[in-house]
């Protein structure tokens, strides 16, 4: 029963981690950028929701209507002013740039919010649905549904729209995409916007389920990275599967053995998987350079 409960929790929380990872993997796939700032951006999203909820006294989910566009704008701004000008060694330079952005955000949040722990509140946060002997924490259920909904939207956008076509083209072959008239700059800008907009949503859920301060980002980033790697770069579905897989493993090991070995087990599985499939579970095998 306990294991079953752990599996359910793993799936629910996994959905929420997948949401946070989706932006990361998308940005990876389209732009070759390791968005190291994702942790800090999620915390920023959490703080924004916290402030909006406190000042306007509205539901955290409603606050997304304000924070998501804001963060999307921020993402586009970051692209235009920081990422686009990078000419050489993009992979590493953009990683370092995003790290600098993360530092900057952490510093600003530290000063604005004074590093005490805060948490976003709503009347139903502590509720849970009880079915038989199993518990479904309401907030996780809601965030899971939201995640699935958003990931679905993302899927539709990628596979059913014109923008999605350009996006996939830029992912597979940026040079060719440019040749056929796709404005890859615009695609990249929008992608980073979406990626960071998703961080706003992830941040809201993070903020309702965890007490956080400006330095909370460190615990998030490593997990998101391994989720994205395991799922395969650029694969949103892969991120969902691997996030759920990771959380389930972690939770089950924590319950039947010990929480300290939960994440270790997961990391070891990751290494084993990568030894067999370096491109991750759902990543496309890189086209062999001729």
């Amino acid at each position: 029963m306990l294991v079953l409960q752990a599996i359910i929790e793993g799936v629910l929380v996994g959905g929420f981690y997948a949401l946070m990872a989706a932006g990361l993997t998308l940005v990876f796939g389209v732009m070759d950028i390791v968005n190291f700032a994702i942790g800090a951006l999620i915390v920023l999203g959490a703080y924004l929701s916290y402030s909006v909820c406190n000042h306007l006294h509205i539901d955290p989910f409603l606050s997304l209507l304000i924070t998501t566009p804001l963060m999307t704008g921020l993402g586009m701004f970051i692209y235009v002013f920081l990422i686009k000008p990078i000419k050489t060694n993009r992979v590493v330079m953009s990683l370092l740039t995003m790290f600098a952005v993360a530092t900057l955000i952490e510093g600003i949040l530290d000063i604005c919010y004074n590093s005490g722990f805060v948490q976003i509140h709503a009347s139903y946060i502590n509720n849970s649905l009880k079915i038989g002997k199993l518990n479904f924490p309401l907030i996780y259920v809601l965030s899971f549904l939201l995640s699935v909904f958003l990931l679905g939207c993302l899927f539709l956008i990628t596979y059913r729209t014109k923008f999605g076509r350009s996006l996939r083209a830029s992912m597979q072959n940026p040079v060719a995409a440019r040749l056929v008239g796709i404005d890859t700059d615009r695609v990249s800008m929008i992608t980073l916007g979406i990626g960071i907009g998703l961080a706003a949503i992830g941040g809201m859920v993070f903020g309702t389920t965890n007490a956080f301060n400006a330095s909370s980002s460190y615990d998030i980033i490593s997990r998101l990275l391994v989720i994205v790697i395991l799922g395969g770069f650029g694969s949103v579905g892969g991120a969902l599967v691997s996030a759920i897989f990771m959380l389930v493993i972690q939770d089950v090991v924590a319950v039947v053995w010990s929480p300290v070995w939960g994440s270790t087990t997961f990391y070891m599985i990751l290494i084993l998987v990568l030894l067999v499939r370096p491109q991750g579970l759902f990543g496309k095998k890189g086209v062999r350079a001729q």
Partner: protein
Amino acid sequence: MSTDITTSQRPTPPSYEVPKVYRYGALIVGFFALVIFPLVFNNPTISTIGVFAMIFLMAVTGWNIFSGYTGYIALGHAVFFGIGQYATAMLSSYWHINPGMWTFVLIPVSMILAGIAAIPIGFMILRVRKHTFIVLTIALMFIFQLFAYNLRSWTGGSQGLEVGQPGWDGSVFNLPYYYVGLFVAIIAIITSFMIRRSKFGLSLLAIRDDEDRARSLGINTTRSKLIAFIISAVFLGAAGCIYAMFVGSVYPQFSFDPAFDLELSIMAFAGGLGTILGPSLGALIISAAQQYFLISFGGANVFLIVYGALFIVILRLLPGGVVPAISDKWRSHVVRKEQRKLDAEIQGPAEGGAKK
């Protein structure tokens, strides 16, 4: 192969490199500056910063031998830094080494252990490339951190371990660490230099530019990468050892710290990734500046903001790093000179003829 072209036909291309006089001159001046530095600035605060700068100097130089030369950006070298620290802490108590000069014996031991650890790790992670490699190294570092937490009978878990402190007087306490650090750092730089000018080093650079092509040209890329990986791990082990001795306590959280690797890569980038002295310069400037900045501007949390902003500016202005920027400057200087000479030749045949 036979060609009938004689050497006389061969026009000597101009050298775009900064002349040896300047390069070696700067090197010698730099060396003496580092040697006399703690004697001139004998305040222990400054020499403490000096010790940390030396630790970073050897670490970055080691890191650059692998990541800079091969272009594989490793963000998990804290693994070897941590192994050096834990080796030092565990062995100093296991062998009952009295805190003092003898503790320095652990430096070569830590280097060897880090090198040995690098062999299986290298085998595992060098199979993948690009992003996967970067993230795999990070993941590996977290695994080691978790092991340090979980194998508590050896590592002390979250309680950490201690390294005994010698009872030296505060006024000279830092000096042995500084000079031993400088010595190891110089060995690292010399190693880096020897590698850069060796055939082996050239093969590493070839891997950086196009690994598959390098393989097709008869380079055993797997072996080359692994050897570079081991050499770089060795210097990280030394850095960890000196760090553990100097700070005196070892914790999983600080020994296997993701920020450490980011710092290394920032230093290497600021100085010039893949150059011999760029990363060293980056290490000296950034590690010292960072610490000095914190102690001068005190308990301010604006630190993060200024640090982040400064970093963005550096990345924007000097994307290649300081050292490549200097050689680029020199290069364009040479090119301009060439151009002027050429202009003069084209414009002045009449005068030339008159002189004949």
